[in-house]
């Protein structure tokens, strides 16, 4: 498929992606996700596979529907910055997570029906110091 785009007054010719093929890939990956979800794999394998599949789909959308594969590198740099920053953010959360994972007190789900809630339904359980 060949498309012509008028960019900054210059006629630029480039070959566009096959959107139907991308659509089929996305649909197949979604079906695989549902299969992984239903297969009853161990939690670690299930989470790893699902995250990998989600990223594969996200990259397909960004590269082909959002045309990053055909754009100048400056736009790809803008696109990758939030990914890097959020990755750092996840690492910054690790100290808090590891601390909280030491405290194994119960967090019972108080009530599922809001009509039954009392004056302070979300009062936290007493804290225990590790």
């Amino acid at each position, binding site marked *: 498929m060949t498309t012509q785009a008028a960019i900054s007054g210059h006629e630029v010719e480039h070959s566009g992606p096959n959107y139907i093929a*991308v659509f089929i890939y996305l649909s197949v990956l979604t079906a695989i996700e549902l299969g992984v979800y239903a297969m009853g794999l161990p939690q670690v394998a299930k989470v790893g596979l699902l995250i990998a599949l989600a990223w594969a789909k996200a990259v397909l959308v960004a590269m082909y529907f959002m045309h990053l594969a055909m754009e*100048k590198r400056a736009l790809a740099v803008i696109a990758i910055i939030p990914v890097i920053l959020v990755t750092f953010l996840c690492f910054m959360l690790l100290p808090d997570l590891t601390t909280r994972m030491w405290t194994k007190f119960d967090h019972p789900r108080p009530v599922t029906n809001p009509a039954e809630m009392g004056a302070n339904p979300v009062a936290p359980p007493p804290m225990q110091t590790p």
Partner: protein
Amino acid sequence: MSEAAAVETHEHGAMQADQLEPSLTPGSLGKLGMWSFLAGDAMTFGAAIAAYGALRIGNPNWPSPAAFLGITTTAIMTFVLICSSVTMVEALGSIQTGRMARYRNFMALTVLGGLVFLGMQAFEWHHLLGEKGMSIKVDLFDATFFILTGFHGCHVFGGVVYNSVLLIRGMTGKLTQAKANLVEVAGLYWHFVDLVWILIFTFIYLI
């Protein structure tokens, strides 16, 4: 100065500008602006999803999403958004090649896809708030669910309005092949909404 010399000088000046900022001159400033906005928006969603993960990992008694959230409805919602992304790129391809009737049809389908998604989300929320007894005030599981999916739903609503404006402008003749770039910029936003839903579907519903 003769006309030919003026054109040559102009082209020379443009070439110099290109040489000054070879990698910082994308084809469209609209695209650059939209990508900058989307980078900020991605940080917001990224921070919200990271916070969700931190809250969930830190709580050993986090409820299983499967006990509350239906996968069938959301799988269909995911499929609807993917389809609407395809109709969006077809609408863009149509207006770039001057096929305005085809553009209007595909843009109308894109708007319809967004409306179907919002309708299904409203149906899902109604079910969860009513039969399942979920509420943003109950606990963090419920709060994070409603905040993340609600924030994304607001984006879908914004996209439907955005695309509807472009559809109406196409129907009234105000949007022509020469302004196809406006559709490409709107498409970036719409595909981003699709991309974020792909991640929310995985992190909130499937894991």
